[in-house]
């Protein structure tokens, strides 16, 4: 693994040696930025100095507040339309603390990405900083440090987000200058998918997170850095970074369209564990379930998608209220709606129902669309899919000699393949609605009713049986595992030339009924308690 890290580092050295000249062409903007921030407000100076002090002290709870709340407050107040002080300027207020500056730079560029339009130079600098930061971490740099998990998650997540935007940026050649194109052409290593994957893998390996997970959330080695069998998973920062990198890999593989591998990387995760590390950061929880269920959908595992989305959306509904004032609220809200859309699509293809409260959310948001999908309107599937899917990327560089915009190609191809599947399935609901009218009918007659030939009708029946024979996992299994079962909305078989349809009996659902009423009673009691509190 060390070899990998060396590789990447040498590539960024190469940049320093051979491309600095090139870079000057793009650096006007950063210079101007530096000028603009020559007068850094005093409160910001103090904030930076205090932030660095707490960071050095390893005061996690204070750093958490500074990172989650104060930084955003200052951004809102002073840096709504400009960037934070250039790292070179900021260095003055933090005693030239190189380690803190690595983290500060990450925040600095992240802020530019979220509020401003990053220039080519800034995209490249942000990449270089990630290389420096990860190399530093992988070379034992933060053994002595402790940082809040939410910050570590944001670093991992932002790293992939910036890769995603780079892929789109690079494939949009129409409005680029010749200089910019020449620079891109000569610097294939920047935001290269291979390096990105290598960093994530290196982080997983370094942290020793997989043995930690397989050992029931216990390190397998010693916690003493001087011991030969020193285990990095004993240090929270490494443990979290390794764990979050696994979920990062899930996301990257989904963006690339490799859904099988995406689910396979989740193998070591324990979804039954209520204290699993992914539950520690809401954004991470949502990301994990969004990409996992999206992979289910793409791999035609609609039953699993319904099962997991159903319980995830319930859970999010409960935790959402704690985030109403957080900057993540918007993001959570959007992802929830996307997951609802994924659920709507999956439900049309599945024979399951979801919890009543999720069902009412669905009806409110997509009731009409679900109806139209059930009637076989393909355009609605496409519309919901495009709304709910991630931003796919083409990992390779474009053909620089043909300056056209290709950034939508990956999305187009994924959508096309998904829609091919939708098209193949359209016979299923139609056959179902015809079959449920009879208990026994001649094949030729039914074919006539469906206005088709007998041979064609036979193939509809085969298609129905094939498409309702699905790969399904269960809650205790790893996401990639499962087995084939038949999940048909109506059971039938053909006896030579006669179709025989079997009755399906539904048993009453007592358990669910009681649960619902327990819930209603609890809500009622809570309401009464609040009323009495208020009247006192």
């Amino acid at each position, binding site marked *: 693994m060390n070899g990998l890290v060396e590789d990447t580092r040498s590539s960024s050295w190469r940049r320093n040696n051979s491309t600095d000249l090139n870079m000057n062409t793009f650096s006007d903007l950063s210079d101007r930025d530096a000028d603009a921030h020559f007068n850094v407000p005093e409160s910001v100076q103090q904030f930076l100095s205090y932030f660095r002090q707490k960071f050095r002290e390893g005061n996690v709870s204070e750093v958490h507040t500074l990172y989650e709340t104060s930084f955003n407050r200052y951004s809102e107040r002073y840096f709504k339309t400009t960037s934070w002080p250039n790292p070179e300027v900021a260095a003055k207020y933090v005693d030239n603390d190189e380690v803190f500056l690595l983290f500060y730079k990450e925040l600095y560029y992240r802020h530019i990405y979220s509020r401003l339009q990053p220039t080519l130079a800034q995209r490249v600098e942000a990449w270089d900083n990630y290389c420096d930061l990860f190399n530093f971490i992988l070379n034992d740099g933060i053994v002595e440090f402790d940082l809040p998990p939410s910050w570590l998650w944001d670093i991992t997540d932002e790293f992939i987000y910036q890769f995603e935007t780079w892929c789109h940026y690079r494939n949009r050649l129409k409005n680029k200058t010749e200089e910019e194109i020449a620079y891109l052409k000569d610097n294939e290593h920047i935001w290269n*998918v*291979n390096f990105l*994957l290598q960093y994530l893998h290196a982080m997983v390996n370094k942290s020793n997170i997989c043995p930690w997970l397989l050992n029931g959330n216990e390190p397998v080695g010693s916690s003493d850095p001087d011991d030969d069998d020193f285990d990095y998973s004993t240090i929270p920062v490494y443990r979290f970074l390794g764990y979050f990198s696994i979920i990062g890999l899930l996301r990257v593989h989904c963006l*690339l*369209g*490799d*859904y*099988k*591998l995406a689910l396979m990387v989740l193998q070591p995760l324990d979804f039954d564990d209520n204290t699993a590390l992914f539950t520690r950061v809401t954004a991470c929880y949502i990301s994990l379930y969004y990409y996992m269920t999206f992979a289910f959908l*793409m*791999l*035609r*595992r609609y039953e699993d998608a319904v099962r997991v989305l159903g*319980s995830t959306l*319930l*859970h999010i509904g*409960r935790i959402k209220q704690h985030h109403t004032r957080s900057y993540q609220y918007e993001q959570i809200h959007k992802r929830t709606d996307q997951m609802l859309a994924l659920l709507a699509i999956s439900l049309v293809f599945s024979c399951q129902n979801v919890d009543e409260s999720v069902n009412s959310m669905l009806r409110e948001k997509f009731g009409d669309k679900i109806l139209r999908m059930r009637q076989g309107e393909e355009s609605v599937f496409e519309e919901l899919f495009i709304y709910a899917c991630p931003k796919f990327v*083409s*990992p*390779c560089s474009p053909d620089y000699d043909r300056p056209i915009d290709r950034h939508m*190609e990956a999305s187009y*191809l*994924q959508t096309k*393949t998904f829609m*091919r599947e939708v098209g*193949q399935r359209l*016979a299923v609901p139609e056959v179902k609605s015809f079959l449920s009218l009879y208990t026994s009918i001649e094949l030729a007659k039914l074919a006539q009713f469906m206005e088709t030939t007998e041979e064609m009708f*036979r*193939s*509809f*029946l*085969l*298609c*129905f*049986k*094939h*498409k309702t*024979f699905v*790969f399904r996992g269960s*809650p205790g299994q790893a996401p990639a595992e499962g087995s*084939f079962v*038949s999940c048909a909305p109506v*059971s039938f*078989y*053909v*006896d*030579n*030339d006669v179709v*025989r349809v*079997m*009755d*399906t*009996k*539904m*048993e009453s659902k007592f358990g*669910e009924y009681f*649960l619902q009423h*327990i*819930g209603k009673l*609890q809500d009622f009691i809570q309401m009464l308690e609040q009323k009495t509190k208020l009247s006192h």
Partner: protein
Amino acid sequence: MEQLSQQVNDLLQSRRYDPEILTDLERYVEAQCKEGAYDGDANLACLKLYQFYPEKTNVSVVVKILLKALAALPSSDFVSCLYLLGEKTQREVPVVTVITWADFLETGNFVDFWNSLQTNKDIIQGLVGIEDSFREFMLAVISRTYYRIHLSVLQKLLCMSQDDLICFLRRHGMTDITNDILRFPSTEENQPRPKTIGEQLPLRKVLESLSYYS
């Protein structure tokens, strides 16, 4: 073969994204075709490297991978492969044909599948036993759909002469034939038996709901 499979597995563990392992992966695909073996995960890794390095794409290997994945139905391997193919590869003539075959197979349109296969036989050249793999998939679907079927219908669906068909069926333990009508071994799906959908309420769900209120 076993040795090669082990070797490829080791390579994927240590150098999954290294374009230099492509030659080994391609050799492995060829070996699978010759020996009627199948390793979907290794083949996906090969397509992924083509995705990263499109200039290295070998269309004839892509077609072989697609065919092997198609023969592995009902698994989702074939769509998994399609998701990784770039626009240019998807437009190559043999790839387009294989994609139509997938449409035929997935929609139960077996007769049209065989018609198209007969006119494009060169595509499956060198893939040992692939036709029988397709037939096995078909037979599995048919036996879930039919309780009894006339041999003439089955012959058409599987594209076989009556003698070959009877041999093929015997190999799969299906010998119950009277008056040219085959009766499939009974499965849960081809039997007259009312289905009951019971309540599925796992303990986990009860606990989740209750813990929220406690």
